[in-house]
C-alpha cells in the first residue's frame, strides 16, 4: 500500500473517487506499524507544504460550504453510504444519523465559518496575510496567524460530529491532519474525509484517518513525535494518558467528558408546555443522548401551572413519538441490562413513594423518563434515559448540580425573554460553558467555544508585525 497519494497536476483528469485511500480503509487484518505512521505523517506534511499552506481562506470556505450543501442532498453518494451502511457501523438508526448529519452540515456554511474566523481572529483573513484586527486602532501593528504543521487528533468514540468539526477547524488552520479514531468509531470521519478528498484531492492529501484501540503506545508515540499539536477528546483517564505522552514541544488540547442539563422556567412551561416537551425530547433523542451536549436531567420549576408530572408525561409522549420517526439504535445485551437495572431500581421506588415516577417505553428500552422530587443531578445511563427533577428555582437546581459543576457543558434553557438574561448570567457565573435554547443542545454553531475555549484560536500561533 502506498501512502504517497499521487496528485494530478492542475488540469489533469482526476481519478475516480477512491475508496481505499486512508489507513482506516485498510482491511482489519492489516497491521499498522510505528514506521507506517511516521511515514504517513511525513507525507502529510510534505503535501501540506505543496497543497495547503498557501491556500486562501476564501477557497477553503468555498470548498467547505459546497461540501456542507452536498452532504444535505439526498443523492450525495457519501450521504447515501452513511445512511445505508451507517446503522450497522455506528449503532445509530438511519433517521437519527440523517438528522444529526443535517444539523451539522446545515451549520457548515461560508457565512458561519466567516463569523467563526472573525470571532477567533478579529479579522477573517488573518490566516492569509497580515491584517490589523477590526478593533485595533494602530495601523502600524498587524498580525498573521498560522496553524500547526501537523495536527494529531485523538478522536472520541461516542459521536462522529465533533470529530468532523475538529477536522474543519484543522483545515481552516491549514494544518496537515492525522485523525486517530477510537476502534469502531472511524466510519463517519472516514466518509467525511473521502468526501473532502473527492471534492479536492489536494486538500484530501493532507488528511489521514486511522483507527486503533487507545493505548497502542508504539503507534501513538510515532504519531505524537511528528505532531506539533495534539487534540484529544475523551474520558479524563484518556486525556491524562495522552497528555503524559505528548512531547514537550507540542501543544496539547484536551476536551474531557462533559454533561449537560435542561432548565425550564415555570413561565415558559405555562406558555407552551407541549412545545417545551417536544424540544426536550429532541435533545434527548439527538444522537441517542450519547454526546457531551445531551441532557442527563431536565430541571422544571414547580409551583403553579403545569406540574413536573404533567411535563414528564408529555415528555414521555414526545419520546414515544420520536421513537416512531427516529428510532433509537439497537443495544447490546449489556447496555440494555444497564437500562433494565436502573428501571427496576426506580420502579421499586415509585411503588413505594409518590416522590418518584417512571414512564418507560413498553416492551423495549427505547426511552425512559424518571420524575424525581429531588434536585440532585443524576448522570444518566444514556440511550434516551432522562431524569426530570422538580425544583423551586434556579438556586436549588444549581445546588443540586453542584457535584457536576466542573463537568457541565451546556444548559438548554427554556425561559421567557424577560427571564433569560438573568438566568443566563447565573448559569455562566456558576460555570456553564454554553447556554442555548432547549431543543438546540446538540446543535452548536461552528463558532461554539468548546469547553469555553477559543475553538480555532487555541490551535493557532500568532506573528505580530510592528511596522
Amino acid at each position: 500500500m502506498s501512502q504517497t497519494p499521487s496528485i494530478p497536476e492542475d488540469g489533469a483528469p482526476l481519478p475516480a473517487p477512491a475508496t481505499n485511500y486512508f489507513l482506516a480503509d485498510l482491511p482489519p487484518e492489516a497491521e499498522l506499524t510505528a514506521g507506517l505512521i511516521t511515514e504517513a505523517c511525513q507525507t502529510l506534511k510534505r503535501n501540506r507544504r505543496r497543497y495547503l499552506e498557501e491556500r486562501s481562506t476564501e477557497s477553503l470556505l468555498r470548498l467547505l460550504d459546497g461540501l456542507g450543501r452536498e452532504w444535505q442532498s439526498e443523492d450525495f453518494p457519501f450521504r447515501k453510504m452513511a445512511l445505508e451502511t451507517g446503522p450497522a457501523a455506528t449503532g445509530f438508526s438511519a433517521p437519527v444519523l440523517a438528522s444529526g448529519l443535517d444539523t451539522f452540515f446545515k451549520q457548515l456554511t461560508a457565512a458561519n465559518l466567516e463569523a467563526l474566523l472573525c470571532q477567533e481572529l478579529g479579522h477573517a483573513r488573518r490566516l492569509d496575510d497580515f491584517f490589523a484586527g477590526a478593533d485595533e486602532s494602530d495601523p502600524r501593528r498587524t498580525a498573521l496567524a498560522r496553524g500547526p504543521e501537523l495536527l494529531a487528533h485523538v478522536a472520541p468514540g461516542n459521536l462522529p460530529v465533533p470529530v468532523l468539526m475538529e477536522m474543519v477547524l484543522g483545515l481552516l488552520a491549514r494544518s496537515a491532519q492525522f485523525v486517530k479514531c477510537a476502534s469502531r468509531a472511524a466510519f463517519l470521519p472516514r466518509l467525511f474525509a473521502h468526501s473532502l478528498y473527492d471534492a479536492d484531492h489536494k486538500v484530501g492529501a493532507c488528511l489521514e484517518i486511522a483507527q486503533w484501540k487507545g493505548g497502542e503506545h508504539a503507534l501513538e508515540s510515532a504519531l505524537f513525535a511528528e505532531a506539533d499539536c495534539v487534540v484529544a477528546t475523551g474520558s479524563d483517564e484518556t486525556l491524562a494518558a495522552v497528555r503524559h505522552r505528548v512531547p514537550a514541544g507540542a501543544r496539547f488540547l484536551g476536551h474531557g467528558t462533559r454533561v449537560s442539563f435542561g432548565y425550564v422556567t415555570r413561565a415558559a412551561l405555562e406558555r407552551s408546555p407541549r412545545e417545551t416537551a417536544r424540544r426536550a425530547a429532541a435533545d434527548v433523542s439527538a444522537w441517542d443522548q450519547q454526546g457531551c451536549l445531551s441532557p442527563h436531567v431536565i430541571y422544571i420549576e414547580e409551583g403553579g401551572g403545569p406540574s413536573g408530572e404533567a411535563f414528564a408525561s408529555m415528555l414521555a409522549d414526545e419520546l414515544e413519538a420520536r421513537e416512531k420517526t427516529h428510532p433509537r439504535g439497537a443495544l447490546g445485551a449489556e447496555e440494555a441490562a444497564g437500562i433494565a437495572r436502573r428501571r427496576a431500581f426506580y420502579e421499586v421506588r415509585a411503588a413505594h413513594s409518590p416522590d418518584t415516577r417512571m414512564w418507560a417505553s413498553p416492551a423495549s428500552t427505547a426511552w425512559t423518563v424518571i420524575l424525581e422530587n429531588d434536585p440532585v443531578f443524576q448522570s444518566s445511563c444514556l440511550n434516551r434515559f432522562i431524569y426530570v427533577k422538580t425544583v423551586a428555582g434556579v438556586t436549588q437546581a444549581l445546588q443540586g448540580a453542584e457535584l457536576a459543576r466542573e463537568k457541565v457543558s451546556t444548559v438548554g434553557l427554556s425561559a421567557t425573554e424577560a427571564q433569560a438574561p438573568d438566568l443566563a448570567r447565573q448559569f455562566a457565573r456558576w460555570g456553564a460553558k454554553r447556554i442555548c435554547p432547549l431543543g438546540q443542545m446538540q446543535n452548536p454553531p461552528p463558532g461554539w467555544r468548546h469547553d469555553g475555549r477559543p475553538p480555532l484560536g487555541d490551535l493557532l500561533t500568532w506573528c505580530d508585525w510592528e511596522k
Partner: protein
Amino acid sequence: MTKWVERRRIGAEGLIVATSSALSLKEFALELRPRLRRRGGEDALGEEEFNRLALRLFALQHEAVPIYRQFCDHRKVVPDAVRHWSGIPALPAGAFRDFEVSSIPAGERTRVFHSSGTTGGAPSRHFHHADSMAVYEASLLPWFERHFFGAQSAPMTLVFLTPEEAPQSSLAQMFKTVRRHCGAPGSVFTGRLQPDGSWSLDTERTLAAAREAIGANEPIGLLGTAFSFVHLLDTLLAAGKAFALPKGSRVMETGGYKGRSREVPKAELRALLTRLLGVPDAAIVTEYGMCELSSQAYDRVAADPSRPAGILAFPPWARARIISAETGGEAEAGKTGLLRVFDLANIWSVMAVQTEDLAAGRAGGFDLLGRAADTAPRGCSLMPGP
C-alpha cells in the same frame, strides 16, 4: 448524593395481617420441608406441584411483605389473577438494598445476610430467624451433597477458604452448615475476617491441610470463593510448587472477584486448579448463590464427566428464567438476558427475585455471563448511578 430514606407505610391493620400470614408462612414451610429432602432427582417437584406451591407462596408474601405488596400494586398484579408461576412479579434484587424485604418483624430477626457489594454502596440485606434458617439449611444441603460428593459420600475432610465466623455472610453460614453435616473431624476454615470486614486467606494453613491429606492419602474437599483460590494459586505459582491431591479430592468455587485479586477467567482458574492442585477438571464444581436467595445453583456433579462445566442448575424447588433486558419478556433460547429466580425456599422474604446477573439459557440450566453494569456507556461515567 442524598441517601434514600425509607418511609414505611405499615399501620396497625398491616401488623395484624402480618401476624396472620406469619402463621401461614410457617405452615408453608412445613409443607415444603419434605420436598427439600430428596437427594438429587430433578423430578422431586413436578411442574404442577411447583406451580401450586409458588402461587400459594406468592399470595402469602403479597400479604406479608409490605414493599412487595406495594410493588405488585404498582404493577397492578393481584395474586388471584396469576395462574402460572412465571407470571409472579419478580422483585428487583436492588430492592434488598433500599428496603427491608421481609415479613419477619424487626424484633424477631436473628440473622441478616449482606451481599458483598462491588461498588462500595449499601449492601443487600436478607433477614432471617430460626425458622427461615432451618429452611435455608434444609434447602442447601441436598443440592450441595448431590453436586459436591456425586457418587462418593460424606463425610470428607473439608478445607473452607473462608472465615468460620462471618455472621453477615450467607456463604460462611452455608459452609458452617456443610461442615456440620458433611465434614470429617479434621475439617478447617482457613480464611480470616479482617477488622475492615474483608477476608484474607491463611495460605500456609490451607497448604498444610493439603499436605496432610497427601500424607494420609485421603481425599479432601477445598471450598471457597474464586478470589481466594486465585490467592492460593498465586502463592503456589510464586513458590514454583504444585500438589497432587489424593484421588477423589474435590474443589467448589463460587462467586466473582470483586476487585480483591487479579481476575482470572473461569476456564483458566480451572486449568490452574488442575495443574497446581492435581484436581481433575471433572471434580471442580462451580456454585452460584446470592444472599437474597435460599437455594443455590451448581454446574455439575463432581467426578461425573458426562456434564460439561459451566451450565448452572437450581434444585427442583427453585427455577430460573432468562429475561430479555430489552423487552422484559423471556429471552430467546440461548440469548443473553437477566437471570430471574423463583426460589420456594425464600419463604419469609420474596420468592421471585429479578437478579442483576447476565445469563444465557442452555440445555439443563444457564450460563452465567457477568453483571449488568451501571456505568454510563463509552466512558461517560461521571458519578455512581443508583
